[in-house]
């Protein structure tokens, strides 16, 4: 006989976030009517300590053995409430969440209908949780080594931090040399520190550190395993396969600049003295700013947002170009004291410490600022006529004056936008990372978990997640390191318990599941003539369960019974009496 089911239902107000659009009391009252529901309550913030204490007390006093919380997305607080159950002595999997914030109160505008939907979602959770079963947490040991992919400022900062903590790092860099984009920069904004000094001392430390193995000119070819126990094949110089084992991965592959020729109105590659921002950096590094013919440009025009913030190219802001352009104005003012310097910008984005100050001080250094509309009014560039006394003309609708003007130019600098690497998708596939609509990696949660990813043990740091400046990149790198050192310190991590299990009685030995498993986690026992799941390799996708013709595979925590009951619950109030 099944145990007596005693369910507690908790409806969260989330302050006004839910309560404003959902009649939480009405939902709670509906739930009280359901069989097996012992208690149903609402509370202002279920995730707060008093909210959780409410659940703990009820579990003990009301002898609850199932809990449903209707609140925000389970992606945010499922783990919180599972811990609540644990601390009350109840198995954490005897719990189900109903998402009535992100998927109800925030997306609907009729209180009556939103309340009705909330009732059905919570009822679905109630019907489902009845069939939940206790699952035991499994832990695996963590290999204390870390693989870092990418040797730019982010990867190097992470490597040194881990290595200084006494742990092994394998750093794989695709290029001949480490340093990434920072190595291509002369001075950094806003304080005009030397980028070269910043990066080269760190590269030297990385190379000589006894806990860091650097593989330059190398590429990761294959990654397998799971948190705590990954393996990789690395090819150095296009051959020589190196095999590495490690417990965590930091992806720090950075970004690239867009092809300036794609923004056709700026004539890159067609007019001689149109340069990209990185080409200007090269000139600064070499110590001479000059036109192609070696002459001094009398008029330098710096154009912002080339390929950024425009739906024809990239919709997003490339984050670092505005301040880099101001830095150029300062460097050019010193290098070319007699030249005219124009900043042709769309919006000046001076976010970050000391950046607005840089803007103000640059404005005071005899630099002309002209504004255009990035969506409908991008400047046009053309070769000047002989009588113009300059090489090129930039024609634009100047936004602040409202006039159409022509600016003389002998050198044009394009502040090229940033984009993800072409190989980002392939590496994402290897490491289990998704892309966010462009070629940048998506983090686990945009606010609450910005360096973790949906694959446990894999972290994204620096510009491969979105364009970033140096301090933000280093902050992310060190944040990921803190997470990794914490797991290494504990020595073990909890892994997926929602794995598949074969019912030996029902298995007919057809091996369909063996073929569909993406992790080769299912093998065939030749003696018993049945399939066997290796629970360490199983990641709980459930594909085998839905493929088995005999229904012999149960996907733990996503069993047929649980899902079918949830459907019944969801639909049972669908037409109100």
């Amino acid at each position, binding site marked *: 006989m099944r145990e007596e089911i005693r369910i507690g239902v908790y409806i969260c107000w989330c302050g006004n976030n839910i309560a404003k659009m959902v009649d939480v009391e009405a939902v709670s009252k509906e739930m009280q009517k359901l069989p097996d529901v012992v208690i149903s309550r609402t509370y202002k913030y279920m995730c707060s300590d008093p909210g959780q204490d409410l659940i703990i007390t009820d579990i003990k006093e009301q002898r609850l053995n199932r809990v449903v919380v209707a609140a925000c997305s389970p992606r945010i607080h499922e783990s919180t409430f599972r811990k609540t159950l644990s601390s009350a002595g109840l198995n954490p999997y005897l719990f189900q969440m109903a998402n009535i914030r992100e998927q109800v109160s925030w997306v609907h505008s009729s209180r009556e209908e*939103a309340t009705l939907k909330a009732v059905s979602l919570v009822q679905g959770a109630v019907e489902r949780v009845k069939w939940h079963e206790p699952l035991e947490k499994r832990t695996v040991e963590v290999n204390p080594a870390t693989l870092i992919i990418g040797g730019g400022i982010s990867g190097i900062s992470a490597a040194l931090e881990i290595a200084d903590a006494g742990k092994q790092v394998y750093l794989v860099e695709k290029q001949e040399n480490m340093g990434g984009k920072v190595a291509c920069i002369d001075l950094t904004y806003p304080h005009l520190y030397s980028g070269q000094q910043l990066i080269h001392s760190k590269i030297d430390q990385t190379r000589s550190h006894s806990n860091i193995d650097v593989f330059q000119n190398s590429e990761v070819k294959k990654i397998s395993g799971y948190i705590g126990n990954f393996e990789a094949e690395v090819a150095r110089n296009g051959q020589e396969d190196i095999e590495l084992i490690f417990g965590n991965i930091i992806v720090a592959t950075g970004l690239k600049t867009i092809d300036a020729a794609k923004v056709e109105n700026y004539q890159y590659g067609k007019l001689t003295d149109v340069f990209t921002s990185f080409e200007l950096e090269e000139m600064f590094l070499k110590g001479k700013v000059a036109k192609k013919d070696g002459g001094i440009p009398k008029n330098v025009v710096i154009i912002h947002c080339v390929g950024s913030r425009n739906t024809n190219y990239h919709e997003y802001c490339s984050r670092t170009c505005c301040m880099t352009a101001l830095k150029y104005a300062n460097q050019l003012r010193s290098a070319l004291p007699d030249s005219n310097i124009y900043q042709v910008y769309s919006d000046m984005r001076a976010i970050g410490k000391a950046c607005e100050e840089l803007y103000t001080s640059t404005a005071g250094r005899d630099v002309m600022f002209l504004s255009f509309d990035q969506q409908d009014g991008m400047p046009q560039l053309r070769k000047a006529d002989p009588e113009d006394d300059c090489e090129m003309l930039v024609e634009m609708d100047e936004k602040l004056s409202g006039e159409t003007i022509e600016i003389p130019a002998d050198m044009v600098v394009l502040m090229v936008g940033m984009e993800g690497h072409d190989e980002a998708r392939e590496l994402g596939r290897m490491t289990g990372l998704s892309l*966010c609509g462009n070629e940048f990696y998506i983090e686990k949660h945009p606010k609450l978990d910005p360096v973790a990813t949906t694959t446990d043990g894999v972290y994204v740091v620096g510009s491969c997640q979105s364009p970033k400046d140096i301090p933000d990149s280093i902050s992310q790198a060190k944040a990921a390191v803190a997470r990794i050192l914490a797991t290494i310190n504990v020595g073990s991590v909890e892994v997926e318990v929602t794995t598949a299990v074969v019912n030996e009685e029902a298995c007919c030995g057809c091996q369909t599941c063996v073929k*569909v498993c*993406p992790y080769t986690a299912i093998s065939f026992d030749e003696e018993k003539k049945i399939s066997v799941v290796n629970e360490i390799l199983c990641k709980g996708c*459930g594909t085998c369960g839905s493929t088995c013709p005999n229904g012999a595979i149960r996907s733990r925590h996503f069993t047929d019974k649980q899902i079918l009951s949830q*459907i019944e619950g*969801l*639909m049972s109030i*669908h037409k109100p009496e």
Partner: protein
Amino acid sequence: MEFKPTIVAFLCNWCSYTGADLAGTSRLKYPPNIRVIRLMCSGRIEPTFILKAFREGADGVLICGCHPGDCHYHEGNYKCLRRYVLLRKYFKQLGIHEDRFRLEWISASEGKQFAELVNEMTRTLEKIGPCKIKAILETFDKGED
């Protein structure tokens, strides 16, 4: 009374469920007639789940998975696609309008696309009208002819 279709949606935790959350975080609006079931992968979806949803009175069933090549479990979405194609043929035989059963790819960053999809599917179902499968099966259950 105005017909308001009910949609049962099976969303993958890694892509479309997150996308649906993003629609919420972005305060996008869509009709409240959709009931979401969260699964770890669209590859977990069995034909029984879909049949059950129609059996319980759904006017439409929506499956959302990761875009091709983006599956968190490598290829669960392809397995789902194969089943979907077969199941559609079967539903056609049953007389279930093909627009009642949809498979769409929605990524974790596509909150806007998710909201638009729900809007569009709701409008389509409003035009088609209520699904009669539940009523028909109930008649069978009662043994009437």
